[in-house]
């Protein structure tokens, strides 16, 4: 990894600070690395409890139908079957991510809305019996007309997917964001252009499929082990839908094999496992098969983005109107958030003085979409970053230059009052462009090209239910440090980073820190893994907790050795005073214990991103996050005009993720994010059959996740800014770099072939068609 220069608001040069760090900024091996490598890590599927039952879900074969009747008699009589449940058995309590947009039941009641909707569940002594029982459930459906595109869904007279006064023409959520005056802005513009861009769906495809085990005890306590990204949120949804109080539910997150957003929601496997455990008194395990884990959970929202932009002669953006329509599928899930986030990342990373954004979330009879790495921003950035290149070409400008002219900077007066405390965007543009060889390679044609794409992303999203991150740090006199955190490590390395933060702040070696995480009965409240907020939110909480206990120790030590506790510090397992080693940490801890202070030896920390109240999201101006990452990708591609195949030669990411707490992990996140973006652009497609809304890619054979052999050469340039909000200056790095991969690649393809494709995915067929159209046009003009 190459290091770029330091920017941001601190005036201390980074090197000086870094010199003082013992653990931060070092690529220490992750705490879970060894267990994962040797196969000892315990995932939900690995857990077996005595007397455990196995559950399975019966799913709808219809895209849209009324459930007339369900006969479970035969299934119940099958030997080994302990329980069959349907929507009739459950409380009619809806759940969902955002309280005002809740529209889902634990199992379908009366109606199914996509092929795969959850209709009934079975618990049996083994998996095979449960599967056999599903075959014996008789469901009578009354099929209803269904719609599979947002255009069809919004037509007058289209079938109503969710009845109710709030939903008209299947538009479930609608927002308008406005600042400045776009009319005036367009009047003042030298050049105006409107383009329409389309993006398709994508699966998250974590290797670990969704799983849950519920165990209900006669005391009335329900424990759920679940592959979840947000244990506390799952506890909340589970309690409300089961009709019990949250204190009776304990959610434990075992090791999770990837999430990318698809393990944020509660799913029927959680609800039904819990429900059936409560009824049968036996533990119930449910594991989704690969098809379910791809097509019956959540995906990335397909979108249509219309962008009208007015620019000055010199390329400055004056006015922008964006009309965004996202295909939500059958349920809301994160509906208000996807369009909000999409909107926020229309306001970053360029200065847009006048903007109107009209955003709609539309129901269709396909599986529901939800949060996915970048959550709304990749759709928006694909559109806007594509149009930046178009505008540059219209104005006869360089595509790098038009971006530089419009780039936001730290401390700027943002037109929507977002606060950019640190911003390495401009640097990222130059560094990425240089690294790809922009000057030499851009505009040379001959089926080779380079392209740019840029964006920012939130380090955690604020405004959410007043749930921050909490941490407790405990010390043992034998030297161990235990951190209790609510943060949910889903494979991104959150626990390791938290251990690094605590080790650094407390001045102890990394190996001494043990993290106990994501158990709602044991760990403090935390808002979980979403919006790329874990390092900043939970990491900061852990830092504050470590600082708290450090203060307690140093107070006692100061009393013992004399002097001001303010002049003491802990570093590398020793107490230091005026540059002198005074005693080792174990001795200090013992001193604290023997001081007989009447409080337990724990440090406490809680951190909530500065939030504007009440929750207004898009409508008002203001911030959505405490800090923002920024970055630019540059892609170099080669196109084979005969086959239409695209070869990605190289992708450079210049990324401002604040201070890299663990550089290897940052690099890993960025490279993985690039693969997610590249997969979406060129390979992956759920491939909906428009006759019944069914996704045809249902396995890793047919769903074309790029393989290691398809991965291009990558270079990651880290621009270290020292952000004042995050712990040790860190910002997010998990999602940002996936947001601008598509435009970087598509802009490079356009540079290579001289014609632009505005809808994803870029398939060889589309490239051949585009080349043919270009040639035909050329012939006509000649």
């Amino acid at each position: 990894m190459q290091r770029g220069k330091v920017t941001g608001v601190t005036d201390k040069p980074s090197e000086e600070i870094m010199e003082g760090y013992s653990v931060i900024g070092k690529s220490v091996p992750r705490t879970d690395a060894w267990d994962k490598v040797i196969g000892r890590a315990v995932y939900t599927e690995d857990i077996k409890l005595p007397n455990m039952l196995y559950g399975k879900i019966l799913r709808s074969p219809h895209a849209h139908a009324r459930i007339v009747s369900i006969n479970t008699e035969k299934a119940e009589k099958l030997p080994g079957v302990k329980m069959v449940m349907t929507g009739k058995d459950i409380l009619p309590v809806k759940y969902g991510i955002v309280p005002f947009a809740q529209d889902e039941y634990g199992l379908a009641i009366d109606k199914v809305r996509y092929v795969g909707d959850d209709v009934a569940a079975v618990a049996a002594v083994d998996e095979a019996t449960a599967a056999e029982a599903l075959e014996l459930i008789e469901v009578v459906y009354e099929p209803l007309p269904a719609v599979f595109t947002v255009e069809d869904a919004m037509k007058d007279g289209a079938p109503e997917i969710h009845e109710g006064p709030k939903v008209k023409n299947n538009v479930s959520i609608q927002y308008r964001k406005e600042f400045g005056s776009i009319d005036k802005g367009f009047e003042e513009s030298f050049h105006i252009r409107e383009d329409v861009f389309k993006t398709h769906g994508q699966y998250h495809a974590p290797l670990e499929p969704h799983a849950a085990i519920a165990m209900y005890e006669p005391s009335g306590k329900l424990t759920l082990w679940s592959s979840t990204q947000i244990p506390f949120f799952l506890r909340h949804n589970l309690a409300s839908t089961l009709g019990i109080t949250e204190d009776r539910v304990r959610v434990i997150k075992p090791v999770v094999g990837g999430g990318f957003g698809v393990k944020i929601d509660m799913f029927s496997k959680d609800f039904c496992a819990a429900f059936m455990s409560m009824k049968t008194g036996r533990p119930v395990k449910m594991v989704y098969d690969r098809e379910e884990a791809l097509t019956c959970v959540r995906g990335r929202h397909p979108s249509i983005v219309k962008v009208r932009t007015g620019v000055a002669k010199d390329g400055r953006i004056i006015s922008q109107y964006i009309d965004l329509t996202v295909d939500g599928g059958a349920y809301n899930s994160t509906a208000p958030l996807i369009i909000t986030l999409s909107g926020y990342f229309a306001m970053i990373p360029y200065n847009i003085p006048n903007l109107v954004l009209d955003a709609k979330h539309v129901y269709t009879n396909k599986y529901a979409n939800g949060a996915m790495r970048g959550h709304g921003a990749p759709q928006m950035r694909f559109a806007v970053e594509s149009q930046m290149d178009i505008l540059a070409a219209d104005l006869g400008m360089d595509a790098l230059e038009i971006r530089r002219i419009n780039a936001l900077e730290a401390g700027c007066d943002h037109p929507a009052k977002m606060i950019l405390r640190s911003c390495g965007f401009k640097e990222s543009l130059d560094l990425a462009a240089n690294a790809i060889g922009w000057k030499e390679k851009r505009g040379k044609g001959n089926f080779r090209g380079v392209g740019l794409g840029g964006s920012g992303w939130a380090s955690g999203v604020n405004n959410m239910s007043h749930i921050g991150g909490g941490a407790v740090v405990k010390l043992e006199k034998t030297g161990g440090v235990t951190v209790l955190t609510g943060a949910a490590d889903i494979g991104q390395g959150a626990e390791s980073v938290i251990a690094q933060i605590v080790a650094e702040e407390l001045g102890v070696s990394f190996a001494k820190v043990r993290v106990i995480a994501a158990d709602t009965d044991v760990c403090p409240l935390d808002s979980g893994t979403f919006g790329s907020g874990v390092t900043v939110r939970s990491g900061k909480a852990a830092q504050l907790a470590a600082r708290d206990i450090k203060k307690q120790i140093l107070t006692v030590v100061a009393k013992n050795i004399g002097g001001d506790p303010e002049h003491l510090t802990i570093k590398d397992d020793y107490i230091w005073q005026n540059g002198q080693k005074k005693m080792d940490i174990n001795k200090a801890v013992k001193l604290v214990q023997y001081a007989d202070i009447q409080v337990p030896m724990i440090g406490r920390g809680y951190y909530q991103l500065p939030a504007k109240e009440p929750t207004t999201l898009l409508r008002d101006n203001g911030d959505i996050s405490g800090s923002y990452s920024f970055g630019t990708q540059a892609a170099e591609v080669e196109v084979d005009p005969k086959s239409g195949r695209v070869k990605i030669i190289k992708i450079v990411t210049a990324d401002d993720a604040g201070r890299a707490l663990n550089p290897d992990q940052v690099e890993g996140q960025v490279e993985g994010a690039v693969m997610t973006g590249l997969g979406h652009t060129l390979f992956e497609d759920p491939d909906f059959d428009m006759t019944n809304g069914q996704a045809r890619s249902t396995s890793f054979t047919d769903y074309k996740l790029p393989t290691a052999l398809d991965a291009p050469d990558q270079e990651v340039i880290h621009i270290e800014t020292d952000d004042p909000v995050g712990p040790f200056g860190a910002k997010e790095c998990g999602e940002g770099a996936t947001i601008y991969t598509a435009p970087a690649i598509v802009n490079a393809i356009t540079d290579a072939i001289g014609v632009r494709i505005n809808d994803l995915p870029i398939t060889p067929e589309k490239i051949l068609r585009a080349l043919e159209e270009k040639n035909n046009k050329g012939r006509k003009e000649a």
Partner: protein
Amino acid sequence: MTLPAFEYHRPSTLSEGLKLLKNNAGKTRPLAGGTDLLNNMKVGLNPAEVLVDLTGIESLSSIECAVNQPVKVGAAATIWDLVQRAEVKENLTALYQAGCGVGAIQLQQMGTVGGNLCQDTRCWFYNQTKHWRRARPLCYKTGGDQCLAMKKSERCHAAFCSDVAPALIAYDATVKLSSADGEREISLADFYTRDGKTYNVLQAGEILSEITVPAGAWQTKSAYVKLRSRKSIDFPQAGVAIAVTEEGGKLTGGKLVLTALGSGPMDIKGAGNLFKGLSVDSLDVEKISSLARECAAAAANDVLPVANMTWRPAYRRRMVEILIEESLKKIFINK
């Protein structure tokens, strides 16, 4: 997804195995590498109550391979073991390239040559879970009376997706079919029916036991090129094997065999004449392009892709010429 329950046998002699297959006819399937069969069984396809594992039969795993001699390959020899032999790698290029193109290394090491030749045909309406298929009517292949990919067609259009078969057919390979009642030897080209449902000529209780590549194959120059979405894992969405013979600087004949463009491998009959008499030295990039165009035209009637996999039929059809061109370049230019 779990495998359904089945009875499992692992005989150590061929006669014992063939007897098991005969006695359980109608409810049994032979198992070799399992890379095709077990995946299908997990999603409720290829039902079998009894599996007869052939990998315990030593004679079925043998490979006799010496330059200028006929190559004899036991059906249960792994793809990896066959194609990684130095002789194959150096001389039987199409076979080597086809073998390396199968799935990924793990699949080549588990999968067998016989299994690859006998693999089930594929279709996105077929290779799905039971639950997925329930959303649609049954098709020919699952016991119904229609093809979901080609409405109104009278046959199943599932695609034959072996990489290895076209290469072997290009060498005029033959196969031995064995049953408890005897054995027969037929050309590999005749082993296939071009019907997606009953895609080969195996009778109940009969297995493909041995593959023979005639000695003439050592004198060929050959190549295999497949169209795939990714550089690994994928089945072919179109594939081309070419093997030509040469004498004194002139081509004396050749074969062009296509795969994944219909329900069986297609041995393009007119191709041999297009190659015959061409001077090898004259085959520059330009000449190869026009030869590829002629070959593709000769193949046009045999290219029958339908909309049953990732890339659409028109694109796969269009790519035939490009793949032929690439194969010819591999043979005559890149070498």
